[in-house]
């Protein structure tokens, strides 16, 4: 059992293959950016790729935006050290997609233009609603960005031997270049390249693992159970308290339908039918990916061993890279490391673009300039916002160096589920929704999530090392999602306005038939 405990690994030393693959990825994506820059002249091209992305392409891009290095390395690591429990995340990260498909994708595509706030504000007062939605978007994007940047710095340090700060700056500069010059067209193609690389890497690794077990995953699980006991095939300690599991599940399921960078993708396709098809492809790809990470986790458990994995990195995050090295040597490790780096780069580019869209399209155009803005000015503001966000992301990455930020992905999902998702759903479904109701629900959804996560064991015990926490749940979604819905409904009932309700009929019609496209 401890046979492999001192596995020899080259992780931590500079890996030439990884550096070569990574440089190749940067070269190809910058080439794409150059090509895209010449096609990015209007706001519609900058934010929405001119609405010319095909469903299959958008399906890959959605998968690329969604499959983060955290889920690839994190789930494989969790499975390799605990077994079954990783499956809770594998399923949780997938089940939000049908919700996006059934409830959100088509009305969003038909009603909106560039951001999800277009849908919420469709028949309400523009300025207050967009101010509140910018808050929710920036909160979601910031925490997601911090988690990705800190993860990137740590990962690159471990795999390429570069310093943490250098890694952060490289990621930040590449991401700024994609978004600033190539807008949504470049970002979409970076996602597609990344998704193909990540899915290919995971598939090769899965086939290599299964080839040692007669291509039969059950034989692999049996080998794991023989070595580490049947307990690895059963639910373990991850779900100690039932309410914690349900709360996390709610954040993952409904948070997906409130992630600004995911929602923005539906504007890149020509119509509602294409939006629908693209979610179908994305769900297939993402589901396959999470099934593969589960197999990879068990592969690492059997072939590398949990002790050796924890020895290299206590969180277990190096399980998949160690497995790659064991099966394919240093060269394959280099390939997987470069893929993980590319993965982070693509995700932060998507996040930055959605943040820039909220700042320019929602905040600048509709709140500060009250809708009277030339297209050229809007494009300029979007580019300034991109650079500003990129610089902020680099600074946040450096500031949070060495901090435990793993909880921030869960926090980003909780804010998306509690601030953005209820507002979207009520705006789509309910005639009686009002401006005051929308603002109250989005602001309270954001603030209550932030306050409760601060008071939760996640921050008080895991980060601040206090003995107790005031709020019992690790993820607050179980409380904050119903709270946000309740506040949205109660405030709307108290401030009912005939005019806003009457305008719902027109909104319903546009959700069904689509609006005429305008430039600007």
């Amino acid at each position, binding site marked *: 059992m401890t046979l492999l405990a001192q596995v020899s690994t080259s992780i931590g030393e500079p890996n030439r293959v990884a550096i070569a693959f990574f440089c190749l990825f940067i070269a190809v994506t910058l080439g794409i950016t150059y090509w895209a820059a010449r096609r990015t002249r209007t706001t519609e091209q900058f934010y929405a790729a001119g609405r010319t992305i095909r469903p299959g392409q958008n399906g890959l891009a959605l998968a690329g935006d969604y499959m983060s290095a955290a889920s690839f390395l994190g789930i494989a690591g969790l499975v390799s050290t605990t077994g*079954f429990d990783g*499956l*809770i995340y*594998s*399923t*949780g990260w*997938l*089940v939000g*997609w*049908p*919700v996006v*498909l*059934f*409830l959100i994708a*088509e009305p969003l595509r038909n009603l909106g233009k560039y951001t999800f706030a277009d849908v919420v504000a469709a028949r309400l007062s523009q300025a207050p609603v967009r101010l509140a939605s910018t808050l929710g978007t920036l909160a979601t994007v910031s925490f997601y960005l911090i988690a990705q940047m800190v993860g990137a710095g740590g990962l690159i340090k471990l795999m390429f031997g570069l310093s943490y700060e250098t890694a952060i700056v490289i990621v930040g500069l590449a991401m700024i270049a994609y978004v600033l010059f190539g807008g949504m067209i470049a970002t979409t193609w970076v996602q597609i390249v990344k998704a193909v690389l990540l899915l290919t890497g995971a598939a090769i690794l899965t086939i290599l693992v299964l080839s040692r077990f007669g291509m039969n995953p*059950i*034989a*692999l*699980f*049996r*080998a794991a*159970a023989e070595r580490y006991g*049947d*307990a690895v*095939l*059963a*639910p373990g300690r991850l*779900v100690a*308290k*039932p309410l914690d*599991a*349900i709360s996390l*599940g709610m954040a993952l*399921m409904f948070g997906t339908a409130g992630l600004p960078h995911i929602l923005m993708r539906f504007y890149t396709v020509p119509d509602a*039918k294409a939006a*629908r*098809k693209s*979610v*179908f492809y994305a*769900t*297939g790809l993402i*589901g396959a990916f*999470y*099934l593969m990470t*589960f197999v990879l986790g068990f592969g690492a458990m059997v072939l590398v061993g949990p002790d050796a994995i924890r020895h290299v990195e206590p969180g277990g995050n190096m399980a998949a890279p160690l497995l790659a090295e064991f099966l394919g040597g240093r060269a394959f490790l280099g390939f997987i490391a470069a893929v993980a780096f590319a993965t982070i780069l693509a995700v932060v580019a998507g996040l930055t673009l959605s943040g820039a869209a909220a700042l320019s399209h929602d905040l600048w155009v509709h709140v500060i300039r009250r809708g009277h803005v030339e297209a050229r000015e809007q494009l300029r503001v979007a580019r300034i916002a991109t650079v500003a966000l990129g610089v902020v992301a680099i600074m946040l990455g450096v500031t949070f160096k060495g901090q435990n930020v793993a909880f921030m992905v869960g926090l980003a999902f909780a804010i998306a589920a509690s601030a953005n998702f209820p507002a979207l759903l009520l705006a789509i*479904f309910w005639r009686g929704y009002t401006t005051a109701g929308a603002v109250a629900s989005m602001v309270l959804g954001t603030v209550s999530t932030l306050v409760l996560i601060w008071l939760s064991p996640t921050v008080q015990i895991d980060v601040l090392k206090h003995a107790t926490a005031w709020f019992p749940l690790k993820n607050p979604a179980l409380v904050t999602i119903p709270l946000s819905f309740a506040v949205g409904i109660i405030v709307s009932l108290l401030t009912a306005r005939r005019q806003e309700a009457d305008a719902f009929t027109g909104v*319903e*019609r546009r*959700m*069904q*038939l689509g609006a005429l496209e305008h430039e600007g």
Partner: protein
Amino acid sequence: MTLDRDAELRALAARRWKVALLLTAVMVVLYFGFIALIAFQKPLLGRLIVPGLSLGILLGALVIVCTWLLTWFYVRWANTRYDAALHRLKE
């Protein structure tokens, strides 16, 4: 004539919401059912069906397969039935 078309469009939208909400409810029940079993019935999920395959792993994989099936079903329904009806009314 336009009143008829209006009513038909509204009925069609209502039909889509009915299908969408029903499928959402199925997904919610399946996933939170799985989570509830993990939370409250750990020994049951740990039971082996064949050596190497526990009920928990089988159900988890089935949740993923059901996710695929539900999205496939909806997209097929919407691409054929819903779009055809909408196209007729648009003319």
